[in-house]
């Protein structure tokens, strides 16, 4: 790779051992992908918690923090695996909670801003057109590339942290114009009145085109979609299709004026088939989850409206996850009180699918099914052996309150 004088200085130890190691690592990754050079990044979003990192990762991180590793650009953290206020009641390990606190302390020592959110793009930082960033999880990356026109690859935890320490990332993939062009067109004939419908579109389009470099171009939709709708669409495309970018005619900044030759369409009938195809298993309706991604303020308001004067059925569990900022606003506005009054558990700073101890939690509660309005979470939680069922938001609330699965 072609290195600037500043990069050669980092390699020579001019910015300390941690930055040197980080750049050496980034050069190996860049070489693999044929990157010719680095691009400076302005913002980093990283995944790092004890559930994903394990004891080895924690030991490595503590050593990094101790050896003077410090972020040189604004760096935030993704959703993590524990809400300490709920750990004990959720049956999570006290020993792992201690490690999680050590991990958070090490990150803060490195100047990481521990926001613990997967909706940084809605609540923390909105990059502009053409801005290079180094983000993960996948839902944040596809939103950055598509809706903002910013530029990021999927950056795994170690890669994002390296970018934070060096202030740059290898130039390959979605940093380059050549990978940002639409590769197939999707006509949206369906009404898409619920967030779950947008996730279902992501499932249909993603499953049929699994490829990091596939970029769908949506067109023909009858109105302007909102941020939460694009969030569920993007999260599902990334999850089912491993995709990092989409275009939406008339909506996203880099949408092309000409459609690609390959074409597909999504109709209301296609969506009904998606819902119908989720098997109901043994009919267990005792777990309903609103998570993956965390809820925005408007999602919290909508849930609060739907749960007003209702109660989660005895023996059932309904979980909502969001970040600390949204939760605080939801308290100020009374949404959180309505939800909690209805028996909903609100978890802060986490995502349901990465909860520490989730499999034993499932066994202890004898949960077999998980119902959600998020197409992403119903896709990725399979390793914990849940049978998952996608339903529209109001239907999820009805299932939570009635205990009847339809």
């Amino acid at each position: 790779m072609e290195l600037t004088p500043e990069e050669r200085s980092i390699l020579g130890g001019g910015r300390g051992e941690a930055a040197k190691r980080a750049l050496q690592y980034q050069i190996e990754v860049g070489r693999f992908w044929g990157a010719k050079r680095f691009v400076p990044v302005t913002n980093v979003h990283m995944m790092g918690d004890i559930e994903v990192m394990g004891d080895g990762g924690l030991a490595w991180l503590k050593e990094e923090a101790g050896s003077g590793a410090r972020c040189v650009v604004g760096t935030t953290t993704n959703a993590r695996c524990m809400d300490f206020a709920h750990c004990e009641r959720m049956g999570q390990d006290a020993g792992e909670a201690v490690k999680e606190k050590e991990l958070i302390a090490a990150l803060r020592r490195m100047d990481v801003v521990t926001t613990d959110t997967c909706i940084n793009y809605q609540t923390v930082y909105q990059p502009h057109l053409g801005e290079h960033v180094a983000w993960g999880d996948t839902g944040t990356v596809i939103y950055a590339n598509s809706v903002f026109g910013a530029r990021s690859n999927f950056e795994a935890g170690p890669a994002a942290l390296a970018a934070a320490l060096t202030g740059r990332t290898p130039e390959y993939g979605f940093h380059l114009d050549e990978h940002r062009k639409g590769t197939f067109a999707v006509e949206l004939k369906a009404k898409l009145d619920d967030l779950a419908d947008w996730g279902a579109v992501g499932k249909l389009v993603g499953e049929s085109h699994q490829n990091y470099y596939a970029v769908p171009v949506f067109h023909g939709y009858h109105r302007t979609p909102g941020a939460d709708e694009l969030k569920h669409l993007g999260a599902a495309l990334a999850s089912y299709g491993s995709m990092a970018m989409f275009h939406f005619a008339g909506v996203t900044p880099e949408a092309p004026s000409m459609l690609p030759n390959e074409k597909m369409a999504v109709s209301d009938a296609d969506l009904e088939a998606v819902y119908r195809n989720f098997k109901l298993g043994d009919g267990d309706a005792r777990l309903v989850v609103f998570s993956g991604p965390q809820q925005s303020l408007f999602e919290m308001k909508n849930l609060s409206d739907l749960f007003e004067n209702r109660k989660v059925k005895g023996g059932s569990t309904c979980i909502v996850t969001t970040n600390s900022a949204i939760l605080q606003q939801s308290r100020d506005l009374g949404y959180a009180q309505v939800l909690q009054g209805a028996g909903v558990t609100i978890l802060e700073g986490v995502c349901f699918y990465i909860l520490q101890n989730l499999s034993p939690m499932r066994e202890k509660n004898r949960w077999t099914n998980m119902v959600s309005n998020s197409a992403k979470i119903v896709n990725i939680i399979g390793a914990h052996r849940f049978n998952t069922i996608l339903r529209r938001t109001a239907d999820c609330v009805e299932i939570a309150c009635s205990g009847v699965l339809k």
Partner: protein
Amino acid sequence: MSITVNRAFGPVVEGEAVVSEEGFSPRYDLDRWSGVITKPGHKLEGTSIVDKICFFPTAKGGIAAGWAFYDIKWKKIAPKAFIFGVTNPVMVQGAVFAGIPITEGWSPHPREAVKTGDWVRVDPARRIIEVLRRKA
């Protein structure tokens, strides 16, 4: 018999091949405490990948997979190398971080050249995988 790969990272390694017809995620498919593929219905369900040279057609999974390679290496249950038909940035970032050799792209397809149980050598610098011994 040998296979040429398009991109590669890591030192030369030798080991027993495990050839999969299905893609792989260290989080969706693998028990990260035993190194055995446990995802119900995975074509390699019940197979250990510890110390193996693993051939997978595709990579699955999201960002969380990035730390998983270092985690399994630390627990001494990592494979010796990952050989992918098509991979994604997270797999590469994770494997490089853990120091596990990884390659992408292949010719010919492994199904024509190597079987599970064969002894193979991966040479990332030369971008070549050689079958040294057939399974007895």
